């Protein structure tokens, strides 16, 4: 819902992501604040922002597959892993530039995802979710079995020095800008995909795949495309992760990570890329707050053991996520929409 007095002359105008001047100004302000962020934050908070940026890309990819196309995927972390290994191998073993390695990492994950998307042509729902778990199981075994000269085998791959255009990007502040830049590009793609022809087809498949096939949609092709697009995002996130951590081994990409990605998306809302951003931010900040609280409790209550306190904090984390879902089952994205429309028609009440 837009404020009264705003009219569009054609459909293209209505489809724009930024339809009003204040919207464009708000985005510019947000980008400026993000650019200035390293000036006011300490290295830990910058590191946290880097982790959020990388996770947002992976969860935005999951939003395409799960939220947009309605194909349940529990193997996103494996595709992140494929990207991480590809980027690390291309950079460390073949001297490829950082951004090219990250881009090709996305492509590699996309290609690998095609294998696991084939069952989507025949099955859906929980049955499809089971086949995506196969990706999670197969990924470490394959990496460990491939010649060690490819992906390092069980030793993994380390990256000695991270540089972009010859400039070292090893400090948190410098790497923050790399992660931020890539995140902005990927989110731009995600938001535009949603309103593109392909995005509309994805949504049609999600809402009713049989009906969409009757309307002429090639189901197999578009389901594979949905997996491919989601995995490209995962691969890019994996590439960034490899350069941030600077050492990749298979046990960094577990099924639990995939479940966390899905949890973040559900908390944020499946309906759009904004859900990926809000969900990642909410869950990460909640985790940080609870860990912070746990550490303060430990300092204040030395008679309690750390094991007890942090068992309690994990329960609190789970309870907080459940509470968020009960209060807003459609995700924070929906809550944000309600807030926006309430603001736009203020002082009149929402219908």
């Amino acid at each position, binding site marked *: 819902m837009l404020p009264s007095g705003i009219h569009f002359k054609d459909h293209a105008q209505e489809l724009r992501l930024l339809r009003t001047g204040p919207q464009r100004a708000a985005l510019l302000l947000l980008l400026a604040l993000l650019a200035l962020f390293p000036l006011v934050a*300490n*290295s*830990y908070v*910058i*590191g*946290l922002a*880097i*982790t959020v940026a990388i996770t947002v890309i992976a969860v935005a990819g999951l939003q395409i597959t799960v939220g947009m196309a309605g194909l349940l995927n529990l193997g996103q972390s494996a595709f992140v892993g494929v990207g991480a290994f590809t980027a690390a191998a291309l950079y460390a073993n073949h001297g490829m530039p950082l951004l090219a390695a990250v881009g090709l990492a996305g492509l590699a994950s996309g290609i690998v995802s095609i294998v696991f998307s084939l069952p989507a042509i025949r099955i859906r729902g929980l049955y499809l979710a089971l086949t995506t778990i196969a990706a999670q*199981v197969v990924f*470490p*075994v394959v990496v*460990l079995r491939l010649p060690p000269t490819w992906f*390092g*085998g*069980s*030793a*993994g791959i*380390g*990256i*000695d020095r991270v540089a972009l255009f010859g400039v070292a990007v*090893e*400090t*948190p502040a410098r790497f923050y800008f790399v992660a931020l830049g890539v995140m902005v590009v990927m989110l731009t793609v995600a938001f535009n995909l949603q309103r593109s022809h392909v995005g509309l087809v994805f949504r049609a498949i999600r809402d009713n795949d049989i009906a969409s096939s009757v309307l002429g949609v090639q189901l197999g092709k578009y389901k594979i495309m949905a997996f491919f697009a989601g995995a490209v995002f995962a691969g890019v996130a994996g590439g960034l*992760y490899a350069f*941030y*951590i*600077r*050492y990749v*081994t*298979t*046990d*960094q990409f577990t099924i639990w990570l995939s479940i966390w990605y899905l949890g973040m998306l559900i908390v944020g809302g499946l309906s759009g890329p904004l859900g990926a951003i809000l969900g990642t931010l909410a869950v990460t900040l909640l985790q940080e707050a609870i*860990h912070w609280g*746990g*550490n303060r409790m*430990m300092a204040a209550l*030395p*008679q*309690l*053991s*750390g*094991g007890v*306190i*942090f*068992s309690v*904090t*994990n329960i609190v984390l789970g309870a907080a996520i459940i509470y968020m879902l009960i209060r807003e089952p459609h995700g924070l994205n929906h809550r944000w929409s309600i807030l926006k429309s309430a603001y736009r028609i203020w002082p009149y009440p929402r219908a």
Partner: protein
Amino acid sequence: MLRSIQQTMSGALAAAALAVLTCGAAPARAQSTYNVSISLDYSGPFAAVMDSWYGGQQSVFDWWNETRGKTLGVKLNVKTYDMRYDASQVARTWPQILADDKPIVFLGMGTPDLVSLMKRLPGDKVPMVMGTAMVGPLWTANGWHFSFRPTYSQEFAGLFSYLQSRLPEKRALRVGTVSTQGIPGYVDQVNGVVKLAQTYPDRFVVAGSQWVDNTPINITSQVRELLGTKPDLILVGTNTAQVVATVKAVKELGAKVPVVTSSHNGLTEVAKAVPLSDLEGSYSVFGFAPSMDPSVTAAQIFEKYNKTKGTWGLTAAQTAAQALLATAAIERAVATVGAGKLTGQAVYDALEGPPFGAEHFQGLLKTVAFTKEAPFPTTDLSVKAVTVKDGKIVPVSNDWMPVPELQKW
């Protein structure tokens, strides 16, 4: 120029003021304070043992500050970080540690620390001392990470050698393994034992290997398959869940085959889930002396200085040895560069220097010698082990058990 003169003057004034303030103080040697940063896991898989884990380190550093540190004029300020056993958490905390603490040594906890810091430490000039055993893939040269323990496979080899030499007949010891595919460290443990059998075919045979889920519920069918290969023992070096599942399966099948574990998944941990009577004859083996060993004087240090809720046991003994290696290196660095000029580089140089004698380690370790070829000692290795005898966990032998020489696999 003017600013330079001003700075010099204010520096001189500050020094003079400090001299006036301290001239009336006791004639104790001036102490230089340095930070030692420690990675802990209060909110990950090891939260339950973290009090004992940190207790081992904290008691050693407090003891050292009160005794050796006072003599040397050095005070170690310990800073702890809850890294959640998460590589990302280590990566984002590390820059803050570097900026705020400027540590002269970092005590790592496990794989997440190694993964996140291995490539950063040489540039950051901070050595990392580990307390866990290593794995084959980390057997690389010129690292800034050090562990007093060799690889898990080498530790197992020490016990296997001891047991093989005590077999009633002259034959090879038949080893069965239970592990998990897809986890590099776990696969490596088995690879190392395979290498051992290839190196000494007349002494060791890998009778069979079973690959199971990481945290299995029931592995009776796999263990039945393994028992069919007639193993003398079953090696489960992975995690407590797999040891528990193996012990239950062996009992269910009515067999009497001992299980060999490491320190992190050892008898004490397993005994929380199964009765000790089911573990009769099973082993835990590791590259340090067990906590109940009468020669371990570190136990008295823990008793006197521990401020945590932790208790003295294998976990505390392991981390006490880790802290003792760090303090031994710091003492040597002080002897080389002086108490006022300690740096991470000086501690690294000390670690890379001549062997550290057993006198540094309060009975927990033998001589520890590092070379540039590996991040752990590779020569003159020996281990100790515990077993369950008459329902009690007791040392297998009071003597160190030598590890057969094993080339990189």
